[in-house]
């Protein structure tokens, strides 16, 4: 047969050995995007994921410094240069870049890319009609930036800013029509934002306790913690909400949702004890 006539057998077998190399040349855009994400995951792991032996909290990872995610950022910029068209992939990477700046404490750069991140939301509409992770991040990036920035302020850290940020996130999530909400098993963007809002509510409580209005702290705690708990609870299953958090849930709960479940139960516990 003619299609067997040349050494395609040898080429195919060589392709097995040079698996990724073959794939790169056949679908370069996908391969380049995957490479960016791999770099991001590698650099995230170095900064945030403890090795099996590192259980000493005193050696918990320090806030990311200026050099954090350097390779990821370079790869993102290289991808943009190589594929200049406006596409969902570029929008995704724009959001990723913004989240890198937030997580590494580079709020100046985060503010600089704010317009691009927000406009990326328009490219991140899912064909399923549901609002996906990156679009939620893009639409709420400004609010997230305000919240993260406030956590790192040296002076004049304001509880009202935290309260505003948390409320805005909660309202944004509530504004998503029910039929447009992605299943939480498939997409945890809303759950992530809900928990971020909860963290900001907790910051608000912390800050009011250190302010001139500190006598309001107990009352505010009851309101904010309940709001935070209930916000997270919208995206958890009944079983997760009922779980006995004192036991190790690792074997039962999906690992990726565990931190949200922990936040829910911590807030619930704090509400139960005055």
């Amino acid at each position: 047969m003619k299609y067997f006539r040349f050494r395609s057998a040898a080429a195919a077998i060589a392709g097995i050995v040079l698996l990724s190399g073959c794939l790169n040349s056949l679908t370069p855009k996908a391969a380049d995007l995957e490479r960016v994400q791999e770099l991001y995951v590698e650099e995230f792991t170095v900064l945030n994921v403890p090795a099996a032996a590192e259980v000493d909290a005193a050696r918990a990872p320090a806030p990311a410094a200026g050099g954090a995610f350097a390779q990821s950022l370079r790869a993102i910029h290289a991808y943009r240069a190589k594929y200049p068209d406006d596409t969902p992939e570029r929008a995704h990477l724009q959001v990723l870049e913004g989240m890198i700046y937030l997580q590494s404490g580079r709020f100046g750069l985060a503010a600089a890319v704010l317009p691009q991140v927000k406009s990326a939301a328009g490219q991140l509409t899912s064909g399923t009609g549901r609002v996906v992770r990156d679009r939620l991040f893009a639409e709420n990036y400004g609010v997230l930036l305000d919240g993260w920035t406030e956590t790192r302020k040296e002076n004049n850290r304001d509880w009202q800013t935290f309260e505003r940020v948390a409320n805005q996130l909660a309202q944004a999530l509530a504004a998503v029509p029910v039929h447009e909400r992605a299943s939480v098993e498939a997409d945890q963007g809303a759950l992530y934002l809900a928990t971020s809002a909860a963290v900001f509510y907790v910051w608000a409580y912390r800050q009011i306790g250190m302010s001139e209005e500190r006598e309001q702290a107990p009352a505010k705690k009851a309101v904010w913690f309940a709001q935070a708990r209930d916000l997270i609870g919208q995206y958890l299953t009944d079983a997760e909400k009922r779980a006995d958090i004192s036991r190790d849930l690792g074997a039962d709960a999906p690992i990726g949702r565990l931190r949200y479940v922990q936040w829910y139960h911590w807030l619930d516990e704090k509400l139960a004890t005055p």
Partner: protein
Amino acid sequence: MPLPLALPVALSAIQSLVKFRGRLDTILSLNQSTASLPFALPPVPADDAPHVEPMLTFFGTAAGRDILVIRGLEADWEAVKPSPFAGHVQQSLGRLLRAYYESCDIRPESLGPSEEGNRVFVAKGPSKEMRLAYYIVESERLSRNPAATRVLLAAADTLLEFGGANASLFIAHPRTRALVESLLTEFAVKRDWDDAGGAQIFKTLLGSAVVAALEHPGSCADRPVARVLFAALGDLQTSMGADFVAKLVTRDGFQTLIGRCLVRTADEPALLPDQPVLQEIMGAMLREAGENLDGLLGQPGALAGVLECGIHAAVTTAAPLLDRKVAGQPLLAVVLKAALGETEKAAASHALFARIADGRFFTALYGASLQSVADHPAALATQAKLRSHVAGLISACAGEVGKVQLNETFSLPTLRVLAIRALEVVGEQPEFLSRHGEFTARIMGAAVSASAAALKDGFTTSDLTEITEAVVRTASANLSLAELDDRLQTIVAAFAQPLADEGLSVVITAGRRKELFHTALEALSANPAVWGEFAGRDMVQPLVAGVIRALATNPGGLLSGPALVPAFQRIIEAAARRGRAFLDEKTTPEALETVVTAALVAAEGAVGVSIDAKTLPDFLDDVVLAFLAAPFDPKVQQTLGDWLQQKLPAAA
């Protein structure tokens, strides 16, 4: 969700994707942009509020003030003291609190789930991927249709990976297109594509099928057995799970199996029309194999070997095996299980057997077991009887192998090759195998011993295999040799002597010495009873050795040509024909040796008169028969000389 597209549409879509690679790249990259990625939550604050007042009190003390001085925090203290909760002094307040915590060994509570507890928990993850999973935020797809897209993408992606530039042609060809269709049917139409394990198995099988097809250009059958294999794997995935099947399809040698199944057609008469039966059998054998991948079947070549052996036996045996069952299970699978169990048991008792029992050896053993069982109705009555039958064969083989002496020339790999060949040849005689399991093992032992003897003098492994085969074919074609029991090995070992005889090696080549061995086997077949009696009296070795020594004198180079082999044959056949002379002790092998030696000398004298390469064997035959008919003492040289002169043929 299973594949929601019709198969022809799916196949065309795959072909289109492959053809228009750019489009595939776009689809893949869109898919990639919603990959799961890790994101950290905002940092968690410490609960400092309860510690502000105590801190202020502490630094109001003398000790506290000393600490302020030592740490250079006096300016901060002066800033904070008037209004500790003002916004503009929060940085100073923070520094004072930290100094206070360190001085008083206080750890403020975290306002959130315990950071330390989290780190301990996350660090418990067995792998980096598991630990990273704690931070993953998944995303739903941006594309519209998930399952169909993923199937098509996976298929096109895989075809491009392995098929390279010819991927679209691969799927255009009817035969290979049918392969992809069968894989799609088994692993995308019938199965749930939301299961990532199933998707991975599909991609692995498709990749293997593509490579296998490219390795057999033009040989793919119209209705390859591979389609049945895929169907069987699909059934196995349903019953045993994706992980079980994944272990099978990623095993070394599975691709070889696919290759063999591609060229092997399901159109063979013995396989039609009962394809569901073949699928059931394959499924049962694969299940058995999957549960033994850590043992013998995990060795290279074993998996493909036993499956192919089973199918081959199923279609080539006189008694059809394909639809035979024992206790409701396919015979091929039941025998496989029994053979595995008995082989492991035998290996535990016989060290040398354990060492040679690799994948290839087990395949040969399995094939022999299958043939043995198939032709033995009693063995098929129950599983217990079947297992007992197989156990008898295997333990006998193990016992025979255990008697072999390894040395620097006769190595383990050589023994393995010979033992495998012996089993394969004896497997061609199923009727013999089914009734003479232990004798089969003795044949194997005899064949291997004969080959071991030959190793001393430069025979190749292929020569040894030929020798082994000759022994096995001779013995298994002559059921009366079964009566010889252990004497067979003694006889065969004596016949193997010419193979290594130093005296003969200067007379004739290795090939001619092999011929001597074959003729000796023929002589054995012609008169097994007498040779058996010779063996019982320990006469075989001295008899054969004596004849060899006599021939090795080779006076005048008479035997350097083609005369040696027929001469040897005629002498030992005659010795057996008149063997009663030895058994009744009227003469001895040593006497025969003297006579033959003298006969050759006499023959040398008659060269050019009446003896040549053609008449020499007749002369020697006459001499031996005449001597054994009326034995005398050959040491009386004059008598012998005169007697031989009378035996010489008349001048031409």
